[in-house]
């Protein structure tokens, strides 16, 4: 049905070819990343930009095609922009902010939402972009770094953890070799061989449902919006979803139920009626048809000595909400600066434990949201079914019921209100703005955007007219120096004269003061670096 070549059943987007094995039998490395999916590649880029040598081992010798992630959230775009690939992603992707939910055969949405309620930010609420394009853009950026050693066709087949390192056994076509790493970052996907080889848990729920994905090529201008249907005439009793992608590709997604013949479902003669039911009598070409099921699960802990898990290897969610890859990029954002400070000897190894804490908070919020969406989409009991029918009926004519409609709560940055790295506000301070443990909000500044000014990979002290001596290891930014042409920085941060924010290298707020002093700033900095 498609011209895509396959290797071991996996469709190929671009063949790269295997990298020869190393010349020495026993190698030593600082950081080894297992896996070159979007999470492993983003991890490599984050560390490379900090000047850290990284070795990336990828079992495949090609960039895979097929139907995987397409929806990338604003926070992910902010992270990629910090890594200088955000603008490329947006330029190639289809930007969207609006989602519409339909019920039955009516062409009027019962619910509409906006993923970017706060305007005047650099990045859009969401883009749609095929995962292979994302990987290609990351690969192109990585190619500029000599400190990155990316090896294709190198499969990790053994892990031996120790207190201060881990040994990996790697298989290539040319034979096996061994590599000793100070740190192993396991970004090896949902079936994580590293996790399995270490015998680690992966607890959670499997959902009894199947979804058909039809990625098709169709020249047809439609609004760049997310359209979702409950119980449409072309899939009675089920749901359906439509997204626009670049290159005139559309993603159509149909809920099929549990007891289906999965092989029969992807045959063109069975897919096409769904496509025409949704889009009318259009001429289109298939790109890729597949059926998937999903699970929500996570490891109990993501840090196991010197082996750290990030992305799908650590946590899995249902796709409704686009929290999979977006959640994985959040891991990278959180881990990169911490590992860098530990490697530099500036922070204690305990800082990595705060990654475990914060990434688990994020994973739990993502799992909670995607589980709730799944339960709304596939009610598991008579009562659940009745509540859903009630919500969908009421939503037609009563606005109060619309926020209950759950077609996926889409990925947003997660806050860590109780993070051990955050310093609470002064007890008498009254604040609007961005609380400690929450991510910085973008706003226009004189020469661009606030998040660009916070993208230097260091701690930043953002203040208005506070008289403070400079503390080592912190970049000081005054509102006056960056400029606040529309007054939105001071408004969004409630940054009154004399106030200051300490912002982490991952753009999360560590602390803020109405009456900052050098001693307070230094104490908060120590805490945020895990010296508590």
């Amino acid at each position, binding site marked *: 049905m498609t011209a895509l070549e396959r290797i071991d059943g996996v469709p190929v987007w671009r063949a790269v070819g295997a990298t020869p094995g190393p010349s020495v039998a026993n190698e030593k490395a600082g950081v080894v990343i297992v896996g070159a999916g979007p999470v492993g590649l983003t991890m490599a880029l984050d560390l490379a930009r900090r000047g850290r040598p990284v070795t990336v081992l990828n079992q495949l010798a090609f960039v895979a095609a097929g139907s995987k992630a397409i929806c990338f959230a604003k926070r992910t775009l902010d992270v990629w922009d910090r890594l200088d690939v955000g603008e490329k992603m947006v330029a190639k992707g289809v930007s969207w902010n609006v989602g519409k939910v339909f019920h039955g055969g009516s062409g009027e949405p019962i619910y509409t939402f906006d993923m970017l309620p706060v305007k005047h930010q650099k990045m859009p609420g969401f883009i749609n972009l095929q995962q292979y394009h994302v990987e290609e853009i990351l690969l192109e950026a990585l190619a500029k770094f000599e400190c990155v050693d990316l090896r294709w066709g190198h499969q990790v087949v053994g892990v031996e953890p120790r207190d201060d390192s881990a040994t990996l056994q790697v298989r290539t076509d040319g034979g096996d070799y061994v590599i000793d790493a100070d740190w192993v970052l396991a970004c090896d996907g949902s079936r994580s061989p590293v996790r399995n080889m270490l015998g680690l848990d992966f607890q959670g729920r499997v959902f009894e449902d199947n979804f058909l994905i039809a990625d098709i090529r169709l020249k047809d201008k439609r609004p760049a919006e997310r359209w979702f249907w409950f119980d449409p005439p072309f899939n009675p009793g089920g749901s359906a979803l439509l997204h626009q992608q670049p290159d005139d590709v559309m993603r159509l997604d149909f809920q099929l139920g549990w007891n289906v013949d999965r092989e029969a479902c992807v045959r063109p003669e069975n897919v096409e009626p769904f496509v025409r039911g949704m889009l009318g009598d259009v001429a289109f070409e298939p790109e890729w048809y597949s059926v998937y099921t999903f699970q929500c699960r996570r490891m109990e802990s993501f840090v196991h000595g010197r082996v750290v898990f990030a992305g799908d290897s650590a946590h899995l969610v249902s796709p409704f909400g686009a929290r999979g890859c977006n959640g994985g990029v959040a891991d990278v954002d959180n881990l990169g600066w911490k590992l860098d400070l530990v490697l530099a000897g500036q922070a204690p190894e305990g800082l990595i434990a705060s990654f475990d804490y914060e990434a688990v908070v994020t994973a739990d919020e993502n799992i909670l949201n995607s589980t709730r969406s799944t339960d709304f989409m596939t009610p598991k009991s*008579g009562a659940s079914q*009745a*509540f859903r*029918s*009630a919500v969908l*009926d*009421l939503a037609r004519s009563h606005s*109060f*019921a619309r926020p*209950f409609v759950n077609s996926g709560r889409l990925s947003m940055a997660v806050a860590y209100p109780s993070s051990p790295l955050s310093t609470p506000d002064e007890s008498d301070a009254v604040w609007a703005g961005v609380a400690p443990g929450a991510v910085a909000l973008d706003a226009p500044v004189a020469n661009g955007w606030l998040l660009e000014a916070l993208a230097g990979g260091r701690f930043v002290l953002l203040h208005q007219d506070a008289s403070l001596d400079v503390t080592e290891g912190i970049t000081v930014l005054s509102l006056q120096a960056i400029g606040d042409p529309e007054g939105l920085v001071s408004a969004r941060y409630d940054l009154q004269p004399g106030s200051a924010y300490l912002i982490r290298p991952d753009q999360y707020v560590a602390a803020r003061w109405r009456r900052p002093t050098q001693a307070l700033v230094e104490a908060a900095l120590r805490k945020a670096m895990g010296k508590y």
Partner: protein
Amino acid sequence: MAGLNLEPNIARPDDIYDRLVALHAGLDDTQSAVVNSKLVLLLANHIGDEAIIRQAIALARELGD
């Protein structure tokens, strides 16, 4: 904090009870469940206060078991 009101609060209880039962006339169990759900959602939204709603949810299950 004003909690969930558990004292009698409806002037003509028989009238309201009658209406609650009559609401389901001619409906099968599935339809009844939907109608009841709508009623719960309408009242919950009117109340709005999450603490009160949570208290009512907890109590409903406790008394029912």
